[in-house]
């Protein structure tokens, strides 16, 4: 009899304990989720508040009863947000496209072809991974200035079209494709380029997609290089655009319009993330860092 009661008590205690731990864990997780989400909520909320409404709130309100789209209209008409977006799209697409060609060719050479000096070349490539951008950006700035490519898309794009890390990632992927496929293609008289296009690229599509998305994120957010290389507003990307809007745009007090611009700039990447969530998180955990 007594034993039975004891077991029940122990079980109950364990259950209570588990519940307590669970509650604490969920509270912690939910708290951080709120910290992460709140700035996004605040940005959207502010962007739909009217100018007068926002400025009359000495104590900010957590909701609005009269949302307005006027700020979004202002963001596109008063400042050149549309131009910044177009520039960024052009920059992102061009950089990513050229980079894909460059890294695919290089990765193919390292993974599939056999030539003198390959190993040395690969070691040199790998050691370039350790060089911080801050060291080379100074000379690049001088180079681009001397080439008269400031305020041009070439100047913006050219220095960022190679990535040693992505070459490495792709090479590893290419190497997993069995040799026998290559020999079979060779016997059939398929050229290397055709083999690359028809066999290797389709097989490595997941990695290529990951690389593409990571590069798009990087391009969309790039700030330092565009800032150095453009001082003509017509060539600003979104990061510089938002900085320009902040300092000279609507006037310092029109925060709601500023927030509308922030929402417009942030939205494309968030949508991209929600669509390609798995690929992005997998790609980043394989070696992306923010920076």
């Amino acid at each position, binding site marked *: 009899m007594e034993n039975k009661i004891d077991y029940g008590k122990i079980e109950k205690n364990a259950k209570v304990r588990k519940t307590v731990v669970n509650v604490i864990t969920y509270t912690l997780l939910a708290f*951080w989720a709120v910290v992460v989400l709140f700035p996004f909520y605040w940005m959207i909320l502010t962007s739909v508040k009217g100018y007068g409404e926002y400025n009359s709130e000495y104590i900010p309100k957590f909701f609005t009863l009269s949302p307005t789209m006027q700020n979004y209209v202002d963001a596109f008409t008063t400042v050149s947000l549309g131009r910044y977006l177009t520039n960024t799209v052009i920059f992102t697409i061009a950089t990513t496209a050229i980079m894909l060609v460059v890294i695919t060719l290089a990765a193919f050479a390292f993974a599939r072809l056999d030539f003198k000096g390959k190993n040395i070349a690969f070691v040199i490539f790998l050691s370039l991974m350790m060089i911080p951008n801050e060291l080379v950006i100074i000379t690049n700035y001088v180079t681009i200035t001397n080439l008269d490519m400031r305020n041009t898309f070439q100047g913006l794009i050219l220095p960022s079209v190679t990535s040693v890390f992505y070459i490495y990632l792709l090479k590893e992927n290419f190497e997993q494709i069995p040799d026998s496929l290559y020999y079979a293609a060779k016997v059939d008289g398929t050229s290397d380029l055709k083999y690359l296009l028809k066999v290797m690229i389709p097989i490595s599509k997941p990695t290529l997609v990951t690389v593409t998305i990571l590069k798009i994120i990087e391009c969309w957010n790039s700030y330092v290089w565009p800032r150095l290389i453009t001082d003509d507003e017509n060539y600003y990307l979104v990061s510089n655009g938002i900085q320009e809007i902040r300092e000279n745009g609507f006037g310092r007090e029109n925060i709601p319009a500023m927030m509308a611009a922030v929402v417009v700039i942030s939205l494309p990447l968030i949508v991209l993330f929600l669509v390609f969530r798995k690929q992005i998180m997998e790609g980043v955990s394989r070696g992306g860092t923010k920076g």
Partner: protein
Amino acid sequence: MMKKILKNNNLKGWLYLLPAILFLGVFMVYPLIDVFIYSFEEGYNFASQTYQGVGLYNYSYVLHDPYFLQAVKNTFILVIITVPLSTGIALLISVGLSSVEKLRNLFQTIYFLPYVTNTLAVGLVFMILFKKTAYSDGLINLIIGWFGGSTVDFIDGPYWAKMFVLCFYTVWVVLPFKILILTSALSSVNQQYYNAAKVDGTSKFRTFMRITLPMISPMIFYLVITGFIGAFKAYSDVVALFGTDLNAAEMNTIVGYVYDMLYGDSGGYPSYASAAAIILFAIVLTITCINLLISKKNVHY
């Protein structure tokens, strides 16, 4: 026969590599050599591209520049606060995440959001949350008021307040990456170890200290190293919060100093910029080496 086909690739191999070599050569290898040359050329004139002599003057100038010293101080404070803090919080959240099943995916997705946002754009939101203007004290000050504190202008106010916002924003920005890495590290720990511990009746805390932590220590260490490197290069988050004139705000960082020397109102001095960049690189290299030495003793592979 096969050998022969493969041997003919000498020229072809280099041809496929050519675009990459060209771009890396022009925009990485050459600049790397050049930055050292710049840093030793004294009195370099950007317009005429001439210099007067060779020596260590640029380094001495930079090391005596109060703006640079301020930038070094700011950067070190930022690094010392945010790296341990963000790694710790990330560990706490990841352990929490891996101990629950419901809503895990949702939480993971939310936590990752800051990674895909534009640092400059979201920085503006933080500025508005923390800023105190004539029209409003701002939301954070409102919350401080609820708890009976007195209001502070976090953006244009005292130094510690500005540093607080910067550290907070930095942690917010870097956490997604760390949480992601630690969550996948935790899920890759072999379940058998936990089962064995359970059979032995080991307490949860002891299991964590003796099994989980050693098993994921390589990843924690990887995060500490990349965290140090990343934090030393802080720049765009700072611009997002305090604007481009960081020297005036007393919030410049080393990287910010490099760019200010290169460009903008105070710019036009690639030699000083180069010297400062090399000093930064030396600092980062030293700290990474120290980290590696410590890890050899404490990390279990």
